[in-house]
């Protein structure tokens, strides 16, 4: 500091710092003592804080606190807080769950989270599915769309290997049974009953002989056997000629894993509630007869 900096401001009698901006000069006003004390206190606090809390990589603080530990605590608290609801969901029969709006809402939200972890790999994050993986938003169900049926599907899976109660059906590969011309006629017939082409007597004959036992004489499917409705606008593997030919000639064998034992009861139930809530859920008990599904399909058309 030079002597220049020791000038005194006339009006206040305070020393000038020596900084000047366009004629405005900075006074060297002393700090209030309490401010200095607080500053010293913060330094002391910082020293204590460095010792008490983790401040260096791989060095635990004196209090043993860690953000990971705090997260664990928070998770434990959340799990404990949720236990009451999840226990109630697990203990409630499916049909009663739908009748309990509050519990159902919790179940749907829990299912939404579980779906994101366990189901999106096949069904997609919006449950819209893709070829071979059903869209769960629509009102077409292979094995039933009431919450009990959905729950059963989730628990035992579909064609899940090694599970006795799994939902099982197998369509034969007709390439070994029928000629190419016959398969082509069948494709024509299936397209005809779903409104995509002209019907033929030969196709109808072949259908009655080979397909009606599972898909029904009218082709509207049979949920007991997981046989899809062939007359509606929804196709799991595609309704175009090539896809249908492939399906009839080589058959399809989609597999869904069973979730019993992998997820706890409450989570499976919550998943059922979530899938049921996506817009195609049907009332309980299940209207599984062909006529009931006919009535549904005509709604709003």
């Amino acid at each position, binding site marked *: 500091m030079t002597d220049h900096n020791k000038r005194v401001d006339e009006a206040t009698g305070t*020393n000038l710092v020596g900084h000047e901006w366009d004629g405005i000069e900075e006074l*060297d006003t*002393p*700090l*209030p*003592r*309490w*401010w*200095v*004390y607080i500053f*010293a206190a913060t330094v002391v606090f910082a020293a204590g804080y460095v010792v008490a809390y983790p401040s260096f990589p791989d060095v635990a603080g004196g209090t043993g606190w860690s953000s990971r530990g705090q997260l664990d605590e928070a998770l434990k608290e959340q799990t404990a807080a949720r236990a009451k609801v999840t226990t109630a969901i697990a203990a409630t029969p499916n049909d009663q769950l739908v009748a309990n709006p509050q519990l159902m809402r919790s179940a749907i939200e829990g299912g939404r989270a579980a779906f994101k972890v366990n189901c999106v790999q096949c069904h*997609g*994050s*919006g449950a*819209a599915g893709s070829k071979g993986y059903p*869209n769960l*938003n*629509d*009102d*077409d169900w292979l094995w039933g769309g009431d919450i009990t049926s959905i729950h059963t599907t989730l628990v035992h899976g579909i064609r899940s290997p090694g599970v006795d109660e799994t939902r099982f059906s197998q369509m034969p590969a007709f390439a070994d049974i029928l000629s190419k011309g016959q398969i082509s006629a069948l494709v024509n017939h299936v397209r005809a009953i779903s*409104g995509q082409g002209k019907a033929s007597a030969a196709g109808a004959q072949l259908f009655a002989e080979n397909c009606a036992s599972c898909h029904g004489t009218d082709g509207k499917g049979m949920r007991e056997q997981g046989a899809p*409705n062939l007359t*509606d*606008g*929804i196709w799991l593997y595609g309704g175009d000629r090539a896809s249908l030919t492939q399906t009839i000639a080589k058959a399809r064998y989609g597999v869904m894993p069973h979730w019993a034992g992998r997820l706890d009861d409450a989570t499976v139930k919550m998943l059922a509630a979530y899938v049921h*809530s996506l*817009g195609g859920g049907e*009332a309980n008990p299940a209207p599984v007869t062909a006529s009931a599904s006919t009535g*549904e*399909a*005509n*709604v*709003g*058309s």
Partner: protein
Amino acid sequence: MSALDLINPTSGLYRKREPVFPRVVKGRFRQLKWAVMILCLAVYYITPWIRWDRGAYAPDQAVLVDLANRRFFMFDIEIWPQEFYYVAGLLIMAGIGLFLVTSAVGRAWCGYACPQTVWTDLFQHVERWIDGDRNAQLKLNNAPWTAAKLGRRLTKWSIWLVIATATCRAWIFYFADAPTLASQFVAGDAAFVAYATVGVLTATTFIFGGFMREQVCIYMCPWPRIQTAMLDEKSLIVTYRDWRGEPRTQGVKKAAAAREKVGDCIDCNACVSVCPTGVDIRQGPQLGCINCALCIDACDEVMGKLNRPRGLIDYLNLDDEKHERAGGAARPILKTLLRPRTLIYFGIWCAIGLAMLFTLGERARLTIDSAQDRNPVVVTMSDGQVRNGWTIKMRNMEGRPRQVELTMAGLPQGRMWTDAMDRKGAARSVRLNLAADATTRLHLYVAAPAGPAGETPFALIARPLDATPGTNDGREAARDIKFIRQ
């Protein structure tokens, strides 16, 4: 001496607080200060206890910041979080109001209405009641720590603590039902945040009002700096008429005998001894002066005793000060108050207030919001129709349940249903029961025959079915949305 003092006792790097022991004073501004203080404290303490009937579905507290339920109640006005801009408007009004007050009457906020001033004033009255006036306080302050002094100090601090606690108890009552919280608080059942708030605010009130006092104004508060920039030559500030007072003379008779020039100031230091921030107003306008005008009262009293005209220290603006110094006659105060700057501020202030009142009266109390399902956007149904879905939020901001009819305008072949219904019940309109003062959230589906890919705009219109004729509560809420085909 403390340790820090020992490090460098004369460096001038820091300064010890000079204790201020303001003397009691009587006069018109002291009375005004009393009135403002009583008014402020009364409004502050009583407001949360005022009841206001809003029916069965809303709290009956007149002024309530219901953080837990995200509602702000003020008499007949209820604000939802998304209407928070009204609070922003109030803050702007408060800001403009401070511009107005500052440009007209200087630091009147600091001198009369600032909580720091009000509570410091209150604490100082307690201090006088326990310790006596200025001289007794000075004496006690310099006295050694005896049992008697300790007793007095403890008494004083206890009363301060009681006031501080009461102050902060009143604060939390603005955020919950006051009678309920009061009994919960005493019983120990109140939320932890209530006790924490009271604890922290009690500590700050106790320290700021009892010990920090003018240090808060001089070192901590940004407002004096801002005000310095907002004052102009027409703003009223407490001014010492130095051309009349100087040269200040203690031995007036002696000086007069010696034919010396004698000013009106007799250098009795009354103005300094009553000052709550310990400044000498005769040094001119300064940061430490909060414009409380107690020195005016003190000086007027002395001038009265000496049979000299009052107003040696007075509210005066810089323009008039120059004018009077040059020998001009005193100008009426009203003339400096009513000038373009203050009138413009007042105009803006009123305009914002009126605009807010108008929009408050006109705002919708029934609104509808929608978010279209994006994953998947389009779902093909088994009958070949396509379906879109929306998450609908309907806000019923009135304190009663309402029944509304949600209708589709446009998309003639579309039919809609909600997640509480079956598609069998799909129709052009659905009836909904909306809970009182709540957001009703639902999922809405619309199905329409498949067609070429594209967007078909249509509108959802929510029409109240329970409107009282002659009021505007039958106002519809509408939302333009698009039906998408792929």
